[in-house]
């Protein structure tokens, strides 16, 4: 019988090797990529997947892409069966699980002397895949076809050779073919590196041992997760969050509700159902199920310890379901391009529900910290500014941080000096929006005031949220302040709808953005925070 210490070492070393490999794959992809969204914001993911479609390891990537790769791998299994060595399937099809058309996935088999050891999979956000507006995420899309070209699973690489005919079709449908080619090359190169390195790993162990270790490792991780899930009280919990969609100030906003029901079993399992969410809408805020699942898993991840490996150990204990035709599981061709805000809403409903069940921490409602970019097209270019986010919700443990992205999007801001170099604007004010965080025993984080003066003619489009109800507080904590979007011309203030598009601006116009604060926690009488 093997010594338990030896077995523990063997499994840890095996797990480290898998995670190291996934990270290596991710790093080599970022190194090789072209566009700023990959190089500066790391908008890509990489993972190793078992022959059964389970995650063996996932690189430390974008949270919102957390559950996507394994969903896709499972969906692709029928297509992947006749893949040979050096073949790579690509797809951006939301029907398969791609979050939106910008996200191209790769899947490649790892075949070692005829033995299928698993798959290497990557996901990368491509800057433009066609559609009605640059960037392929029109806020007023009513169906998927406005968001760009849809690519079902196809073999872009065969025996290590790129199918240039197919490549030319993909590139012909992008406004930025050069950058898309660079990024696709990086993604392909990264995938092939991953296949090669995983092949080496399998050879090092031998197929028999590898096969046994990968099962033992996932069983071990599952046991770790189950042990932690025991910290949740068994029972049924539910929470809902609502967001207004409002792109015409002359019309009433539309409310969209996301509902999460969580069943905590006494055996360390969770059943999450999102079927109580609203029916899908003819606006691009629908979230495909793989992505709703990611948002739910991110919420769960926040309650688990940092050391837990990111793999199917978590997924085995958690089932996420949703009836079709909901905003959280739309039937295509529903538009899905701008899904981040609703995915964040799923995350927040889940955090709320999980908080009810957890003995340690209860989050306050919500963070105002969804990235709320505005896009300003002027004569010399297009400014996409995602430096606008809100405050975090407070928790039972501490006050919320001010001006920081939520768990789901986690983007980085544009330095003001660089922004002014690149575009004809003057940033006049960037300030904490003091008092915007919901009051409470622990206060919500403050939002942001951002004042941008346009120095040229242009057209402005917004993607803001929470102008009607602020991020809710919890346990008696107050809601965070609502956001406000205002255009100031010659001293006259004109309120804008948060998702208004096509606003004509004149030189000297000022856009005033006030983002929401986070929800507070606990009743305010017991305020204990220093700030």
């Amino acid at each position, binding site marked *: 019988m093997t*010594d338990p210490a030896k077995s523990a*070492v063997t499994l840890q070393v095996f797990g480290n090797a898998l995670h190291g490999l996934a*990270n290596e794959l991710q790093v080599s992809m970022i190194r090789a990529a072209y566009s700023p969204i990959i190089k500066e914001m790391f908008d890509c993911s990489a993972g190793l997947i078992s022959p059964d479609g389970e995650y063996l390891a996932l690189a430390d990537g974008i949270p919102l892409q957390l559950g996507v790769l394994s969903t896709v791998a499972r969906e692709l299994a029928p297509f992947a069966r006749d893949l040979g060595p050096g073949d790579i399937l690509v797809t951006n099809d939301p029907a398969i699980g791609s979050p939106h058309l910008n996200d191209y996935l790769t899947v490649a088999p790892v075949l070692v002397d005829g033995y299928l050891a698993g798959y290497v999979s990557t996901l990368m956000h491509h800057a433009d895949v066609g559609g009605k507006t640059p960037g392929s995420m029109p806020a007023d899309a009513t169906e998927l076809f406005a968001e760009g070209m849809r690519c079902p699973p196809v073999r872009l690489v065969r025996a290590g050779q790129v199918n240039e005919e197919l490549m030319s079709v993909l590139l012909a449908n992008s406004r930025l073919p050069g950058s898309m*080619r660079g990024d696709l090359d990086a993604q392909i190169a990264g995938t092939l590196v991953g296949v090669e390195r995983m092949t080496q790993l399998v050879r090092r162990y031998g197929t028999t041992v590898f096969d046994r270790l990968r099962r033992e490792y996932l069983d071990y991780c599952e046991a770790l997760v189950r042990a932690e899930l025991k910290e949740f009280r068994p029972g049924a919990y539910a929470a809902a969050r609502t967001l207004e969609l409002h792109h015409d100030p002359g019309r009433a906003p539309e409310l969209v509700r996301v509902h999460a029901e969580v069943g905590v079993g006494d055996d360390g399992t969770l059943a999450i159902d999102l079927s109580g969410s609203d029916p899908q809408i003819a606006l691009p805020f629908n979230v495909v199920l793989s992505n709703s699942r990611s948002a739910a898993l991110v919420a769960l991840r926040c309650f688990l310890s940092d050391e837990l490996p990111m793999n199917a150990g978590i997924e085995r204990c958690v089932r996420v379901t949703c009836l079709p035709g909901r905003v959280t599981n739309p039937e295509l061709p529903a538009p899905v391009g701008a899904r981040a805000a609703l995915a964040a809403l799923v995350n927040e409903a889940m955090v709320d529900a999980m908080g009810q069940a957890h003995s340690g921490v209860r989050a306050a409602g919500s963070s105002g910290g969804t990235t709320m970019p505005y896009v300003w097209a002027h004569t010399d270019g297009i400014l996409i500014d995602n430096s606008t986010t809100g405050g975090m*919700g407070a928790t039972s443990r501490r006050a919320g941080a001010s001006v920081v992205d939520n768990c789901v999007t986690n983007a980085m801001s544009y*330095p003001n000096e660089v922004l*002014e170099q690149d575009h004809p604007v003057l940033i006049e004010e960037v300030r904490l929006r003091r008092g915007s965080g919901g009051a409470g025993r622990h206060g919500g984080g403050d939002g942001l005031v951002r004042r941008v003066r346009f120095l040229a003619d242009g057209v402005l489009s917004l993607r803001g949220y929470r102008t009607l109800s602020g991020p809710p507080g919890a346990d008696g904590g107050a809601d965070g302040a609502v956001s406000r979007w205002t255009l100031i011309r010659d001293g006259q203030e004109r309120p804008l709808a948060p998702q208004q598009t096509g606003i004509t601006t004149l030189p000297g116009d000022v856009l005033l953005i006030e983002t929401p604060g986070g929800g507070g926690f606990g009743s305010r009488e017991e305020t204990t925070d220093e700030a």
Partner: protein
Amino acid sequence: MTNSTDPTTERRVPDEGVPDEIVVAADIGGTFTDIVAVRGRHMLVGKFPTDYDDLSRPVRDGVDLARRALGGPDARVGTVIHATTVATNAVLERRGAKVGMLITKGFADLLEIGRLRRADPYTLDHRKPALLVDADLVAEIDERIDATGKVVTPLDEAQVEEAARRMVAGGAEAVVVGFLHSYLDPVHERRAAAAVAKAAPGLPVVTSAEIIPEAREYERISTAVIAAYLGPVVRHYLRRLADRLRDEPPVDQLWVMKSSGGLATADHAITHPEELVESGPAAGVIAAAWAARRAGVRTAVGFDMGGTTTKAALIMDGTPRVNHDYEIGGAAHSGDFLRKGTGHPLRSPVIDLAEIGTGGGSIAWLDATGALRVGPRSASSTPGPACYGRGGGLPTVTDADLVLGYLDSAPAEEAGGLGVLRRDLAEAALSTLVSAGAAGSVVHAASGVFELAVAQMAGAVRLVSLAKGVDPRELTLIPSGGAGPVHAWAIARELGTSTLLFPAFPGVASALGLLQSEVRVDLAVGVRARPAKEADRALLAAHLDRLTSEAAAQAGEQAPGRELSSLTAQLDMRYAGQTYTIPVDLDGTRLPATDDLLARFGAAHRAAYHHETPSRDVEVTTVRVTATAPSGTVETTPRWATVPASAERTVIFDGVPHQAHVVQRADVDAAGLTGPALVVQVDTTIVVPPGARIRAVGDGSLLEMRLPPADGTDEEETR
């Protein structure tokens, strides 16, 4: 206090005809102040307990000892080279100055807002780092310069004076002036500084553009705040040290190691305290780089294993990489650029280091399934590993090393100078893992702890190399730190690399590196220039000329009477519209012809990202010039003192006991020997596994170890 019978100190009687001057290197660490002194071909190594009441005292003691031990009648200590943790500790322990800040109107909250991204997205309790400026001492000033350098709003100097008086009343000990676009034209910052000087004479003022004249206001102003915050602490410390070194007989020259791996005079360091944050670790990397150059190794990783963390640095062609996007006061980062955002940005040059939370003090524990794990929690130096006998009862990596026979229970540095390592205590601590069912025996537990620690450290080295596109199997591992040479063989095996290189004194590598360093001046200026435009070319050429003469002058000032050893320039370049830049090296500091420059950029872009786009406009965002001058250190052939040890020791490799020869470092020659063996020296033990060859290379100051080819997998045994 070390006395003349200290067993860790070696001294030599000088031969005839050696130079009079002694150079002393002093690296102050958490437990020990390491001293390495040279005179001509003679070298002395010593360790003194760090004195927290007066950090400068062990340095002076080292100087006096060096003079006594190495000196003839006319010998004197001419130069002291110093690595210090005083800057880092001031930030970690928040002992810096009370800093006020004057900032462009509308931007008072700049530092708190930061860049929005979170290092750890999976937490509900995210915290931003506590600010180094005093929130009550931030004043907005009416002024504005735009992105072309044009004044949009003139500076209100009266407002500055009033704010300065308020800050003095509020107890400010230093003031930062941070205005937008000051890197293009520092006129407002300079006038504001003058106004502060008028209203508050004697109050230290730091302007952002004088520290880092580059775009990106958050990072630039954060760097200036760090400089202001550290200023008084560093000034006080270095002045005190300099005073002590002026005691009879006085030392002529004091140099301090900067994070960039170069030296500066104490006077310069006082004006740029932000450049000292990784002083000690940088010196360790310099020692590894020096070893790599000596041995002609192209690709290496310097690997420094300490008590709580392990640091790794990639060394290409004998040169460590220097970065400009460091963070201070945050979490240890594992070479993982995805995890930025836990500390305060610092844009001055810092040797590229990755750090992970595994070290000799890392504690072994059992997870929820009862499986064995190691770290990141550490027993640190107090109470320390169980075997230190200072009350730490938890099993650590060092305890495992002792039980496996890699360490001797004889007096050793790892014991904190407090006597012997207690094997009985190590066994007792590890036996708790056995009784919990996580291991079948104490030896199994020790092997498990050792292997887990090794796997984690190997992971860090792997990421450091892969992040720069280097295959870890092709690199040479250069271990340092007292525990580095103990674990290096196993880490190398885990990485699949076969070659290791050991510096002369791996256990005091930072002090050694100080002697191998040069004076270094890095200057930079932010621009926005398209080299294809004639006017912009003229601007770039003018910047290069000015920075070149300034850098040369500063280096000459700090290394008086010495010729410069290098004068080089680098341009940070990008395609217009890109947000990231690539450093492009020039030949010397001359601006090449436009075609040549664009070709260099294209090649660098291709090397980094596998493609280029010749048709796109190219921009320069930063001009950098670096000047170096030799510190005058002579190369020397060290000798190693004999360490008391038995001739053989039982050592456990992969669970199997072996009788290992114990060999004195001085006895390893070019013919070498084959493991199992232990090479002992005052500062560390080099573990040589069965079948590995170790031999002296070059002039004998380095050891090279080659591992036997892998013979299948040890995992097979578990079948």
